[in-house]
């Protein structure tokens, strides 16, 4: 038997970069095509987010240069706010760090590893540092080569130069050299990724230079910078004890009551009073020994009968309420774990308004239509943005869809999936968007054969917390509330498409209809002539005259209709 000490001799600390290497797939670095797309995604997302926060109309230029076999240089340049010199290592070098990942906010990236992962990927495949050129528009341009110190687990600038900035250039340009990747124009590749990004961000001008030198421009079709999403205070139904406990330690408020009112949504002064009663009630219920009676109390509490429950414990209840009230008045940093636990437990029994949704930033119907029209050039386009909803009791989300038909769209159904505006390129099969889109009876909407129709459907699911099915974050879980919202949105858009298609078909139909009757006239005339003995030609003329007359009437009746038809044309 080996000695314990001996066994532990080799015990070493695993660095974050090692963790990265072991979990590359989870971070999007899996497969040669996808890895390249991920690198571009991280850089473009950073650019778009930065522009958005600074209120700048983004101009993003992506260049992919082939340096050798499976060896590329990726350059992404934007006209964003630039990065202050001292933050460069933080932005590009710190693993598990992010500008916003710690906030309760709808964001494009949720990995918390983002662009530093790209830097890391470049480093382990090519050994090269990432070159960053940036200026905030002041008098200097900073050029820095950033690497990750794999032992210390932080970024370091291996070389830095400063240049004058006579023309006041502002923006950031980063160059990453990567190996073991491949540029292919597939639906998982960079081209497709940028195309989808352009559709969802009509305010962005995006350019791509492919390895063969071809320039592709996805032009801007909206001049309006979307408002950046705002941070939303957590909803009492969405927090764990640990959250409350740690928030209490950090807060600058001076009582627990103020802390609760100030740092959570939907908690008012009155709600805190109610909370006190619930906590008191829960304390009293726990003193009850008969399990059945206890269950009944819990149930009544669930039905908002808190006062009755309290009173059923006799006079004692006022004393307990007093005790609990004291908690609310003490400094938050003195809140104990147990007290935090009591608060969270009470939250579960209380009724709250649904969480606020003002932090959600949909693309908007108009912008979706612009995006689809600008990039796909269809014959018809429509979009639906649904009002925000909540899932799992406390997490707000919102669904929007765009539907484009005909024009330059080739036959065959395409589904463009987005989560918080970010295109999802992988794992389409299990995604709630796919399931919802497939569940629609398209025939009802005059799309007879979806697989051969020139239809593009885009779906964007927006949430502070999108429920992905996997850590690759490429597929949204089949949450019932989201599924239903997507269906409603699609059906709404499909109805508009149906109206359009009906109008288009109706005009052809009238002509065809008249012919339907006319063609039978000779047959009818001959038969009636045999039956009645009257001359065939005469009978024919009676019938043709009758048809003319009727169609002249009906044409004028039906001419009123097209107004409704052209609504979306």
């Amino acid at each position, binding site marked *: 038997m080996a000695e314990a000490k001996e066994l532990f001799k080799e015990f070493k600390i695993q660095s974050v970069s090692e963790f990265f290497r072991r979990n590359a797939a989870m971070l999007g670095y899996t497969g040669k095509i996808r890895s390249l797309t991920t690198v571009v995604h991280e850089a473009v997302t950073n650019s778009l987010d930065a522009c958005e926060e600074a209120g700048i109309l983004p101009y993003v230029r992506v260049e992919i240069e082939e340096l050798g076999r499976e060896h590329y240089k990726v350059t992404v340049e934007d006209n964003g706010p630039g990065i202050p010199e001292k933050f460069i290592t933080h932005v590009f070098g710190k693993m598990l760090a992010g500008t916003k990942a710690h906030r309760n906010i709808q964001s494009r990236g949720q990995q918390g590893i983002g662009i530093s992962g790209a830097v890391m990927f470049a480093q382990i495949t090519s050994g090269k540092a990432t070159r960053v050129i940036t200026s905030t528009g002041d008098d200097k341009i900073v050029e820095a080569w950033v690497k990750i110190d794999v032992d210390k687990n932080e970024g370091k600038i291996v070389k830095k130069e400063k240049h004058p900035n006579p023309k006041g250039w502002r923006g950031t340009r980063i160059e990453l050299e990567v190996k073991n990747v491949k540029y292919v124009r597939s639906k998982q590749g960079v081209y497709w990724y940028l195309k989808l990004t352009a559709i969802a961000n009509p305010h962005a001008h995006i350019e791509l230079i492919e390895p063969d030198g071809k320039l592709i421009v996805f032009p801007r079709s909206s001049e309006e910078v979307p408002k950046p999403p705002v941070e939303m205070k957590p909803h009492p139904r969405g927090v764990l004890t640990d959250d409350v406990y740690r928030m209490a330690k950090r807060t600058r408020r001076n009582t627990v009551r103020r802390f609760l009112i100030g740092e959570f949504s939907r908690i008012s002064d009155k709600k805190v009073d109610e909370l006190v009663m619930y906590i008191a009630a829960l304390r009293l219920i726990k003193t009850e020994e008969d399990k059945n009676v206890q269950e009944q109390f819990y149930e009544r509490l669930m039905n908002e009968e808190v006062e009755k429950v309290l009173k059923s414990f006799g006079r004692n209840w006022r004393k307990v309420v007093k005790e609990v009230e004291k908690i609310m008045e003490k400094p938050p940093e003195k809140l104990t774990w147990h007290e935090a636990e009591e608060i969270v437990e009470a939250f579960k029994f209380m009724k709250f308004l649904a969480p606020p949704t003002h932090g959600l930033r949909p693309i908007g119907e108009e912008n979706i239509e612009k995006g689809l029209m600008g990039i796909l050039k269809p014959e018809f386009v429509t979009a639906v943005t649904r009002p925000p909803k909540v899932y799992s009791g406390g997490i707000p989300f919102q669904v929007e869809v765009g539907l484009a038909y005909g024009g330059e769209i080739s036959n065959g159904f395409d589904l463009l999936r987005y989560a918080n505006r970010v295109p999802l390129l992988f794992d389409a099969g299990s995604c709630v968007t796919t399931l919802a889109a497939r569940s629609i009876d398209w025939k009802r909407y005059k799309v007879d054969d979806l697989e051969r129709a020139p239809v593009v459907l885009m779906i964007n699911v927006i949430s502070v917390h999108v429920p992905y099915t996997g850590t690759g974050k490429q597929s949204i879980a089949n949450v019932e509330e989201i599924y239903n919202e997507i269906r409603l949105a699609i059906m709404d858009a499909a109805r508009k498409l149906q109206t359009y298609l009906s109008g288009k078909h109706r005009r052809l139909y009238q002509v065809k209809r008249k012919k339907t009757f006319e*063609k039978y006239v000779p*047959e*009818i005339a001959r*038969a*009636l002539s*045999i039956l009645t003995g009257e001359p065939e030609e005469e009978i024919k003329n009676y019938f043709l005259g*009758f048809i003319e007359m*009727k169609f002249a009437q009906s044409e004028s009746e039906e001419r009123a209709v097209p107004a409704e038809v052209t609504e979306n044309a």
Partner: protein
Amino acid sequence: MPKSKAVKRSQPREHFVYDPQKVLSKLEEYGRRVLEDIKSGKNPYFDIPMRGLGNVYFDEKRKVIKMGDKLSRRYFLNVAHARKFMQTLLTMSYVKRLVAEGKHASLREAYYANKHTIPGTKENTFEDQRESDPIIEDLERMLGVLREEMHLTADRRGYIYGDIVIRDGEDEFNTSKLGMGGWAVPGTVEHLQFVEVNVDYALVVETAAMADRLIEEKFPKKENALIIATQGQASRGVRRLIHRLHYEEGLPIIVFTDGDPYGWYIYSTIKQGSINLAYLSEKLATPEAKFVGMTMDDIERYGLKNVTEKLKGIPPNKKGGPTGDYKRIMEEMNYPWFQNKEWQRQLQLALKMGVRIEQQALANKSLEFVAKKYLPEKINNGELLP
């Protein structure tokens, strides 16, 4: 035991007259109405009594299915109607020519005769016989005449054997003097005359094999019966023949089918007409027909359990049921003419036992059993179902 105790020939109650002129004038009248409508700028139409279960009822007094008064209106200027409107007129003009010239045509010939490409299109007047047959049915309901009266014959099937003399045009013959073959019943029997009828009753037999068995066993001679083999569901010709033999010659009609929902349906059709042809029941049905077998009781009584077969489908008390034979039996239990305790008992028994029994299963006893024992016993004792 006196012979044929329970079965007696009765007095004739109908005399058949066929007047082609009636059909012709009706056709012309309808044509003229259409012409008047169009001349006065009205959308011309036909009113056609609706087919199907929704438009029939059981005349309790006369014991026949009759057509209700629901109409469907077929317009010229209606996208959904125009083609059928044209087809109706086309068929009417064809029938006019047939009847006027004294010719007969089969349904298929009528289809082909009227089928042609509509000038200037790739469309045919009729694409399919499935289009022309319903139009002819429509005309029967609309004009109130049999298709045979319009000189349109259905497919023929069935033969007869027995001591009766028939005149068909110039020919006169005794159907028991034609060897084992019997006489094949034509598609139209309107023109037949019964010169001599020397039998006590007609036995309508579902299968040719059973009819041949009875002929081989000399049953028609011994029992003084006319054998009518339907060879499955009775053709219109056979049903019209049965009707005429019963009403014009007073012959009792006794039906002998397999003991299964299909056999009982054959009986039912002979007796009351089918739902689809409700409008014809007065001329085609024979409500006074009786049923000799096979019954469910026969299985027990004659020890035939061994040669029964399982009903097909799912019984009503099982999940997904009733389907197949069971469903058919359940439907038959609701027929107005089966609302009597004898038939309800048989049908209930069938559901309970879950088996069917064929006529030919009687061969399990011996070949002559059916002719020497089964039929004479049941018929002469009057053990017949209503």
